[in-house]
């Protein structure tokens, strides 16, 4: 029983971080209809940005987090405006190719710039933990999970309440109508992509604190984000957070009761199941 409770806590904390990882991918996918294969590389870059601010300048990783996100926002904005926008109306295959290419370039540039050494963002409190109702809760994971949920809610509010957020949703729902109402899709696209990159950067910073960084973490993180986006659907940030929590819990329970070697089988099994039962995602719009 204790083990089950601890397993649930582990799963939820892991799931929170997972949802933040997937949030940017799902947003860009939903609005621009681009599956950004370089998403994991953005997470990796965010991790390194935070790592260098922490190890080089001694800035606390949670203070470096917004700076990292701002830097990644600018990077994502410019990348979309000047590169990805060129293929925005092209078939999906072209955008896949382009983002795959960006992923390769970023990954190998990272190896040249940062070397293949493993890096960890290791502040003095990285190992702190406390006990709550018999379960051990790692402090950093809890903060990471809380930040992830807070950012998701902020994004949800932004999309639902602000003028700009509505414009982004309108562009996703009906491009022609949005244009008739005076929305300029070019800047909306760049803005959305920038927000997606910023969220990835934030996830990378947190990932560096709870796990470790090397130039090659991107591919598996892209795959994970993809699974979460499919499970949660592209409709709303709240769906993504549910998708992340489901994946975290499934992995945690699998590792606890079936065997740690089967976590990938379980998570991709869920993906297949969702695609069969509800192809638009558990929380996506029903067609």
């Amino acid at each position: 029983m204790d083990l089950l409770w601890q397993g649930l806590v582990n799963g939820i904390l892991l799931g929170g971080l997972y949802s933040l990882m997937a949030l940017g991918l799902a947003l860009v996918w939903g609005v621009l209809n681009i599956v950004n294969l370089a998403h994991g590389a953005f997470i990796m870059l965010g991790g390194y940005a935070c790592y260098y601010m922490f190890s080089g300048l001694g800035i606390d990783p949670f203070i470096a987090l917004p700076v990292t996100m701002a830097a990644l926002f600018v990077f994502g904005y410019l990348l979309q405006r000047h590169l990805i926008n060129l293929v925005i109306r092209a078939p999906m295959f072209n955008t896949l190719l382009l983002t795959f290419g960006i992923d390769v370039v970023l990954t190998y540039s990272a190896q040249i710039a940062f070397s293949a050494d493993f890096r960890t963002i290791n502040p003095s409190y990285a190992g702190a933990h406390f006990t709550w109702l018999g379960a051990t809760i790692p402090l950093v994971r809890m903060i990471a999970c809380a930040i992830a949920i807070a950012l998701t809610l902020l994004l949800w509010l932004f999309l639902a309440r602000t003028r700009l957020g509505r414009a982004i949703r309108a562009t996703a729902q009906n491009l022609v109508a949005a244009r008739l109402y005076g929305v300029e899709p070019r800047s909306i696209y760049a803005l959305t992509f920038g927000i997606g990159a910023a969220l990835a950067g934030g996830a990378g910073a947190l990932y560096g604190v709870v796990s470790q960084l090397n130039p090659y973490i991107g591919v598996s993180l892209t795959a994970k984000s993809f699974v979460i986006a499919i499970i949660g659907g592209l409709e709303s940030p709240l769906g993504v957070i549910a998708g992340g929590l489901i994946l975290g819990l499934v992995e945690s329970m699998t590792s606890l009761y079936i065997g740690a070697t089967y976590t990938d089988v379980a998570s991709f099994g869920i993906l297949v199941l969702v695609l069969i039962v509800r192809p638009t995602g558990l929380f996506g719009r029903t067609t």
Partner: protein
Amino acid sequence: MNRYLSRLSLAAALASACAAVSFAAPAGATITLGASVQMSGGLANTGRYYKDGYEFAIDQINKAGGIKVGGKQEQLALKILDNQSDNNLSVRQYTQLITSDKIGLLLGPFASDAVLATSSVAEKYEVPMIQGGGASDQIFSRGYKYIFGTLPVASKYFESTIDAMDHLTPAPKTAALLFADDAFDVAVADGTRKLLQKAGLKIVLDERYSSNASDFSSLLSRIKSAQPDAVLVSGHETEVLNFIRQAKSLGVSPHFYSFTVGVPSADFRKALGKDADYAFGMTSWLPSAAEKDPWFGDGDKFAAAWHQRFGYAPDYHAASAVADVEAYAKAIEAAGSTDPKKVRDAIAHLDFPSLYGRIHFDAVGQISLPQTVIQVQNGKVVPIYGATGFIGKAEYPMPAWSKR
């Protein structure tokens, strides 16, 4: 007609490209060794030891005048390709090295999975491969004649550790065994399980996890509830780093934990800082002035020269890679030829001292070296237990994370 012409010119271009490759290495003057190594991709971190090791050894041998083949001094050269940590690509690259580059002497890639796949290419073309990166028993249990390995056998990686555990007070009574699901780690686990049973330890958790797992919180929670005295982990460096960091954040501290990889490397200690302390590990090599070498003087001098050239300390992967090249140099001299079959027979009969230890392959082609138990103490790697018993004082039991 136009299409025919373009095809013709393409064929001509291809032919001239092939000719360029075969003329690139002047016949007779140099002997080229071929390798496909992880210079990028997920294993690049360890792959560099092999690239650097092969190049360093070849330079050193050439500086000493090269090797004597049938009365003539010849130089060694290296054709090294980057397999991007992709085993399928590595198989294609070795095939290319043998068939189009006509290289008949191969050095291996890193890690058992890659060696398992690529050694089949060497065997098929009857070309020797000396490799210092694959230790899985599976590599040597297939009856292959052309594969030689300079890492000690995987199933015995924990042998000296379990011996040492028996001599600790209080001696651990229960153990947990965690291992990744690849060829090397499964072989380690199979061997370790038997060794633990023989030593009379109770295995309270025996769990296989997927390679490159980044979340160990569930496994650690199970360890916490099973409360083993000792935890033995066989995996990759990235997993070991995650394991230790997450053990700290979940407050899991067994009396003793040991890892097959990571502990000897400087990168590991740098990434973990003082959290690396108390971790046990093992190495088949430590720099020592007692290990004499025909080209580098001895193990200490080699380690110093390596550090000066590459800016980081060599570990057993590096020494193993250097030993592979030296084995070729000795075998080619003994065979008096570069004919792959003659060299292969000479390798099988090698017996010489090197900075890495005695190079002598057994009937299946693997070297036999004892694993020295090491522990990180105050950020330094300290040898604890070797073939002759204790050589250092173990810091045991490991204090709880909160009491450090």
